[in-house]
């Protein structure tokens, strides 16, 4: 459409000065006859002498139509029960969160380099930091990393800088993508990552194995609570003590939703807390953007090694409360190759979503949400465990919202069950065979407040149907 219009009036709706009358003013003022003259210093050999081969331009309604058509076949948790979690979880996003995020003042602005004219974003981010501190029991939080995995990578590097040691111990039960990212972040710095085995019955970190691996060269011991496979690490205090006994830092990874009911890591010895903030008011969006949480204690040696932006409370020239970016001397735009991290653009808007979400739920709402999740997930475990040959949960331990379902006794593969469920209009859990072969035919299921009793009953009945076939 616009192509055809172009020849008459070459103005694009997004580009005011593409109108001939405006462009004329610019060209005349510059004393040139053609905008191309401004590219006279680009050697011919690197100039593109043909139009780019991309689609468009399309009229707005055609864009909408094309994308809607493409997406029309996509089935999501709104079309069928989906029991996937594993680091990106379906939770309800209150309408207020989307409303606030749609405020153009927030979403189209950038990093608040000029604090006087950016107080809104600064205060919202400081409030995010503060609420994460309340949840985790830490004193300092940065205003976002890309996701849990990259936050873990940065936390490991931070621990290495603080301690001057180069070994990091992590659980054997960890999200494989998270482990891979951790290695990507640490390998170039010469850091070794070692996995600590778990107790097969319970999934809990094997404390004897941990002790055996401890040494004065360990920078950090990392645990996840709840773990990747959904169970709760019940001996987190003891693990922290083992780490601290040898002068290592204690890093804890969390699903922040769980902290509405579970003990704050700061209260069992954590020095650094990382986690995935996506469940706090952020849609899944097919896996991104996410919200990496990174928090720590208010010790100087910690704070100065933190990656990323941190907002501070201060005053203005008249003594009024004001906010600005603090400790920028850690960051890449000042310190360049000696910066604590290369991160610049982060996930600020997702952090604002988390702040709005936590303010809406409050302590009571968050607690009730956790209770609903625990009741429903345990109901699901109970229903599935009643099925012949099915074991749920696989690990004997307390669980939060995810759990491993083992099909070993059914004679069916996890893959076959996945196919059968999908045919019945249900998306089962994440298959674990490739990641944890020792768990046999297993899948990781996730239950949140979005999964009703009806959904769970449907899953159980569909699975029963498959088993009886």
């Amino acid at each position, binding site marked *: 459409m616009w192509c055809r219009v172009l020849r008459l009036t*070459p103005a694009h709706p*997004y580009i005011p000065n*593409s109108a001939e009358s405006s462009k004329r003013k610019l060209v005349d*003022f510059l004393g040139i006859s053609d*905008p191309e003259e*401004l590219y006279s*210093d680009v*050697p011919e050999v690197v100039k*593109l002498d043909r139009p*780019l081969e*991309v689609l468009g331009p399309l009229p707005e309604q055609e*864009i*909408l139509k*094309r994308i809607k058509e*493409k*997406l*029309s076949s996509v089935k999501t948790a709104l079309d069928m029960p989906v029991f996937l979690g594993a680091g990106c979880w379906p939770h309800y996003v209150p309408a*207020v969160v989307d409303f606030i995020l749609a405020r153009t*003042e927030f979403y189209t602005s*950038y990093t*608040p380099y000029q604090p006087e004219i950016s107080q*809104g*974003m600064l205060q*919202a*981010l400081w*409030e995010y*930091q503060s*609420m994460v*501190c309340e949840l985790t029991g830490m004193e300092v939080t940065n205003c976002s990393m890309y*996701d849990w995995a990259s936050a873990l990578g940065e936390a490991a590097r931070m621990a290495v800088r603080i301690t001057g040691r180069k070994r990091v111990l992590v659980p054997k039960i960890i999200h494989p993508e998270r482990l891979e*990212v951790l290695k*990507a972040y640490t390998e*170039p710095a010469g850091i070794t990552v070692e996995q600590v085995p778990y107790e097969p019955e319970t999934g809990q970190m094997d404390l004897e194995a941990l002790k055996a691996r401890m040494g004065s060269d360990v920078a950090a011991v990392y645990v996840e609570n709840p773990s990747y496979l959904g169970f*709760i690490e*019940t001996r987190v205090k003891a693990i922290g003590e083992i780490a601290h006994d040898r002068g290592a830092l204690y890093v804890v990874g969390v699903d922040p939703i769980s902290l509405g*009911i579970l003990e704050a890591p700061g209260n069992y010895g954590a020095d650094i807390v990382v986690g995935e903030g996506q469940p706090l008011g952020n*849609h899944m969006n*097919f*896996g*991104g953007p996410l919200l990496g949480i990174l928090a720590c204690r208010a010790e100087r040696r910690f704070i100065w090694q933190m990656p990323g932006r941190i907002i501070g*409370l201060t005053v*203005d020239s008249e003594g009024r*409360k004001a*906010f600005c970016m603090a400790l920028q001397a850690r960051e*890449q735009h000042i310190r360049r*190759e000696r910066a604590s991290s290369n991160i*610049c*653009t982060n*996930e600020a*808007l997702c952090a604002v979503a988390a702040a709005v979400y*936590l303010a*809406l739920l*409050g*302590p009571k*709402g968050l607690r*009730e949400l956790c209770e609903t999740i*625990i009741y*429903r997930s345990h109901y699901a475990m109970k229903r599935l465990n009643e099925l012949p040959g099915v074991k749920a949960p696989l690990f004997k331990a307390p669980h939060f919202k995810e759990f491993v379902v083992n099909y070993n006794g059914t004679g069916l593969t996890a893959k076959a069950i996945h196919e059968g469920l999908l045919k019945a209009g249900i998306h089962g859990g994440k298959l674990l065979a490739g990641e944890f072969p020792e768990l046999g035919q297993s899948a990781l299921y996730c239950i949140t407040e979005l999964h*009703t*009793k009806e959904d769970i009953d449907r899953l159980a009945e569909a699975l029963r149907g498959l088993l009886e076939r």
Partner: protein
Amino acid sequence: MVVSQPSFRQARWDEPIIFELGAPGRRGHIPPRPEPEVVEAVGPIEDLLPEELVRKEPPRLPEMSEPEVVRHFVRLSQMNYCPDVGLYPLGSCTMKYNPKICDLVASTDQVRWAHPYQDERTVQGLLAILYELKKWLAEITGTHEVSLLPAAGAHGEFLGCLIIRAYHKRKGQLVERREMIVPDSAHGTNPASAAMAGFKVITIPSGPDGCVDVEALKAAVSKRTAGLMLTNPNTLGIFESKIKEIAEIIHDAGGLLYYDGANLNAILGKSRPGDMGFDIVHINIHKTFGTPHGGGGPGSGPIGVVEELEPFLPVPRIEYDGERYCLNWDKPLAVAKIRAFLGNVAVLVRAYAYILALGPEGLKEAAEVSVLNSNYLLKKLASLEGIEVPYGPDRPRKHEFVVSLKPLERSTGVRALNVAKRLLDHGYHAPTIYFPPIVDEAFMVEPTESFGVEDLDGFAEAMRAILEEARAEPEKVLKAPYNTAVGRVDEVRASHPKTMVLSWRMLKEREGLSRA
């Protein structure tokens, strides 16, 4: 002399900290309760969760009703400047207009509610969009294959550096090739990313024309060279005309050439990094492809690579066999992932819509007008007393330019920072200041194609008025701003160990109040 006064006033709400709002017992959102049958079936929660795991104290979150939460954040939003209200000429940040249709399509349920581990058969349409987008990005950058994984430009740089590592490792040369060359005018992320990936950063000085000093580069390369990180046009807004020669020097030395895509907007459809000889290119989707900056993020920083480096791109790869889209995890040489899942999909879907809206002609037009706007504004500012144009003042700039306020500082004591603050009073966001580090009292201005000639004239007029004011009443400019939500912010206090307050918890501890 009376200097004309700006009429802009930003909202000034004196909004309390959120923890000071609300009242005990107020609720802003009530989650669903479990069905009675569910509770009955599983028994009391105390039996499901041992008491020692339960937190002793609830988190001290605000207790607020829904309207209070809305009012609080709406008030905060009114104290935040954004490009939808006026010029936001932050150099190197490309604060262009964010088309609303892009937000609309990214807000559809099929995007929001899709889970990254869903069976490929249920998400074909999403994979199709991502597949087409990566093909377009490869075409636009002149590269062979694109990974959509990185969450931001610096994240793309890190991935690119890991690929450079993997490439040299594969050739058995990682031990010696430890040096990444970076010009002194580069974005801070370049040296920071290289260092994170384990490289030693070698900084080379810019030549008298503000471009890479080819002789200095020749002197810097050796068998230790892993690569060169460069943006083109560079941070002065000047096109590196000797790019072919630079590429040859690096390639002859056995290194790889990395393109920092922060300045890609200037050359869309005009010239492609791949054709210049770059081996790895990152794209700042949130800059070049009009997606919102989110107050600092989320962005998206895909990278494109030449054919030889394709095996090193991380998995999963989005592939198409002519009928179905799928994720290929089987690439033995792939470097490790740098984040979970596939990338910032909600941002990428916006970019897809943006490219459709502009098409090949529109992308080129965006580049040309961004360059026209930049040169127009430069010419207007260059004529003002107190401003000088460093590095080849007669050479055309691209989408951005850098001027120095050194003459103003010399004659009045008013610095770039003060002028920046005074611009806020006129209702403009300030340009990037004190960057690149090779320019004294730098003012780095990127107007983008999204503003009209009258906006540029308004900005130039504000600059003229401020410079005049600096000569007539320097004190006035030195104490700016006045019309913003708060006055000049004490940034030193915010970072001083004795006064630093980074959370409500720290504030309460500072105030000596109970932690219970």
